[in-house]
C-alpha cells in the first residue's frame, strides 16, 4: 500500500489510511491487545518463578554453612545446629516411597496398556487413577493416619513412606501407560510370532522400548513427593533428633521442618528453614530438568 500517495490524494484526516493499513481499526486494536496481553502474562509467569528462586538464593545462601549438613536441628531458641537429620530423613522417606510406588505403579500401568486396554475395568481404573493424581494430598495424609498411625500406636517413617508412595503411584501409572502405548504394536507382534509368552514380550520388548519414558515417570514422581509436606504432617511428623533405626516415632524431614521452623519466632530456626528451602527446591528443580532432558532424548531417537 502506498500510504504517502493516498495521503496526498485525500487530505481529510478521517479518510487518511491509518498505520494499520486496510484492516479496520477495532480489529487491529483487538489483535494488538491480545498479543501484548498474552506476552505480558507469560513474562509475568516467568517473573514469578525468577522472583521465588531469587528469594530462595538471597535468603538461603546466607544460612548455608558446613554445620547445616553435619549437625542435627537445634532446640527452640538455641544457637547453631544444622539440618542433617532432616536431609537424611527426607532422603529415606522419598526413597522408601519410590521403592514402594515404582513396582506397583509400573505393573498397574502395564496392566492398563497391555492387558486391560479398553476393557471396562481398565477404564474405571484409569478414571480412578486420574482422580488420585489430583486428589488433595492432605486427605492422603489423613487416610494413612487412620490406616497406619492409629493402629501402630504412633507416628513412623513407614507411614510417611506409604503416604508418599500413594502420591507417587498415580504419576508412575500414568506415564508408564502413556509410554507403553507409544510402543508400536508390530514390535509386540514380532515377539509373539517368535513364540514368546505375553510376560516375556512385555518385559523384554515393551518395557525395553519404553524404558526412558518410564524412568522419566519415576523421576517426575520423585520430584513430586520430595517436596510434599501435607501428607507427612500426620504420618512422619518431625523432631529435632536422629530417628530410630527402625523408623518408629517421628522421623525428621525437610518439608515439615521448613513448615515448623519458618513459622517459629526464633531467628536461628528461620535461617535453617531458608537453607532447607533452598536445598529442597534446587534438588527438585534439578530432578525435573533431568527428567525432561531424558524424555526429549528419547523422542529424538
Amino acid at each position, binding site marked *: 500500500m502506498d500510504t504517502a500517495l493516498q495521503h496526498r490524494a485525500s487530505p481529510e484526516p478521517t479518510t487518511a489510511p491509518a498505520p494499520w493499513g486496510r484492516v479496520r481499526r477495532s480489529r487491529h486494536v483487538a489483535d494488538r491487545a491480545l498479543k501484548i496481553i498474552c506476552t505480558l502474562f*507469560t513474562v509475568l509467569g516467568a517473573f514469578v518463578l525468577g522472583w521465588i528462586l531469587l528469594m530462595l538464593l538471597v535468603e538461603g545462601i546466607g544460612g548455608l554453612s558446613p554445620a547445616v549438613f553435619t549437625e542435627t536441628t537445634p532446640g527452640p531458641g538455641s544457637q547453631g545446629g544444622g539440618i542433617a537429620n532432616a536431609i537424611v530423613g527426607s532422603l529415606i522417606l522419598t526413597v522408601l516411597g519410590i521403592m514402594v510406588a515404582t513396582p506397583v505403579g509400573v505393573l*498397574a500401568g502395564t496392566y492398563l496398556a497391555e492387558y486391560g486396554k479398553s476393557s471396562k475395568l481398565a477404564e474405571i481404573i484409569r478414571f480412578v487413577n*486420574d482422580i488420585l493424581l489430583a486428589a488433595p494430598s492432605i486427605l492422603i495424609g489423613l487416610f494413612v493416619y487412620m490406616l497406619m498411625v492409629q493402629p501402630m500406636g504412633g507416628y513412623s517413617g513407614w507411614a510417611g513412606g506409604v503416604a508418599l508412595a500413594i502420591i507417587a503411584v498415580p504419576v508412575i501409572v500414568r506415564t508408564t501407560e502413556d509410554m507403553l502405548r507409544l510402543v508400536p504394536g508390530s514390535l509386540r507382534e514380532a515377539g509373539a510370532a517368535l513364540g514368546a509368552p505375553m510376560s516375556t514380550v512385555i518385559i523384554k520388548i515393551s518395557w525395553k522400548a519404553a524404558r526412558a519414558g518410564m524412568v522419566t515417570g519415576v523421576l517426575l514422581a520423585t520430584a513430586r513427593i520430595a517436596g510434599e509436606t501435607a501428607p507427612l504432617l500426620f504420618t512422619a511428623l518431625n523432631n529435632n533428633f536422629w530417628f530410630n533405626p527402625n523408623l518408629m516415632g517421628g522421623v525428621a524431614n525437610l518439608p515439615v521442618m521448613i513448615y515448623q521452623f519458618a513459622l517459629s519466632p526464633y531467628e536461628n530456626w528461620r535461617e535453617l528453614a531458608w537453607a532447607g528451602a533452598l536445598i529442597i527446591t534446587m534438588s527438585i528443580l534439578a530432578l525435573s530438568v533431568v527428567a525432561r532432558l531424558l524424555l526429549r532424548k528419547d523422542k529424538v531417537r
Partner: protein
Amino acid sequence: MVALSQERLVTSADAPARRSPPPSFDRFFRLASLASALLVLIVLLGIIGSMIYGGIPAFREFGFGFVTSTVWNVNEDQYGAWVAIVGTLTTALIALVIGVPLSLGIAIFLTQLCPPWLKRPVATTIELLAAVPSIIYGMWGLFVFAPLFANYVQIPVSNIVEGMPIVGTILYARTPSGVGILTAGIILAIMIIPFIASIARDILDQIPSVLRESAYGIGCTTWEVVRNVLLPQAGVSIIGAVMLGLGRALGETMAVTFVVGNANRLSGSLFDPGSTIASRIANEFNEAIGLQLNALMALGCILFLVTFTVLVLARLLVSRVKVG
C-alpha cells in the same frame, strides 16, 4: 545397524539356548499387574471409607447443622464447618478469576505467538513453576508477597473505600497485615497457572492446523483466529482444564496455611484472615483428640466430596491429554 545386530548374534551364539519362562510365571505376571491396578482402586475406596468412618461421630453429633454452623469452639466441643467451607470456596474462586485468564494467555502465547526458538524455554519455565513445592509458595507468600501486598494494596485501597457501601466492606482491611483470604487466592492462582496453562496448551496444539491456517488465509487477525476458531474448538476441554485447576485450588494445603491467617471468623472483607478446610486440618489435626478429631475428619470428608465432584466433572469434560 546390520553390523550391530550381527555382532549381537555372534555373542549370543555361545550363550545357552533361550528358554521361555515357565507358564506359571506368565500367569503370575498377569495377576501381579492386575493386583497392582486393583490396588489403585482400593486406595481410592480406602480414602473415601476412612474419611466417612472418621467423620461419622461428628456428623451424628451435630447432624446437618455441622455444615451450616459457624461455631468452632475447641473448649466447648462445638464444631461447625461453614467458615472453612466458605473460605475454601472463596479462595478457590479468587484463584480461578485471576488464574484462568493468565493461564489462557500463556497457552495462547505458547501456541500462537511464540517464536519457535523460544517455545521450549518458556514451556519449561512454566512447567518448573509447577514443580516448586507448595511450601515454598507459602514462604514466598508470607515473607515476600504479604508485606508488599499490605503496604501497596491493602492500606491504600482501605483508605479509598472506607465508608463506601458494599465495596467499603468487601475491600476494607481492619488490620492490614497482608495475610487473608485474598492473599491466599492470589497465591493459589499462581500455583494453578502452570497446570491449566500446560493442559490448555496441549489442547490448543491438538487442534488441526488446517483450521487455523484457513482462518488466517481469509484474512483473520490472530485475535479473530483465537476468538472464533480456537476457543470454540477447544471450548469444553478448556472448561475441563479449568475444573482440574479448581480441584487443585480446593485441596491445596501448605501454601494456604501460611497466608490465609487461620482465623475462624466469617468476615465480609476479602482482606480479613479466614481459614480453609485444608488449612484447618493441617493446623489442628496433630493436637486434636476426641470429637475434634472426628470433626476434622468430617471436614476432610466434605473436602473429598467437593474435590471428587469437581475432578469427575473435569475428567468427563477434558479428553485425556498426554503427560509431559
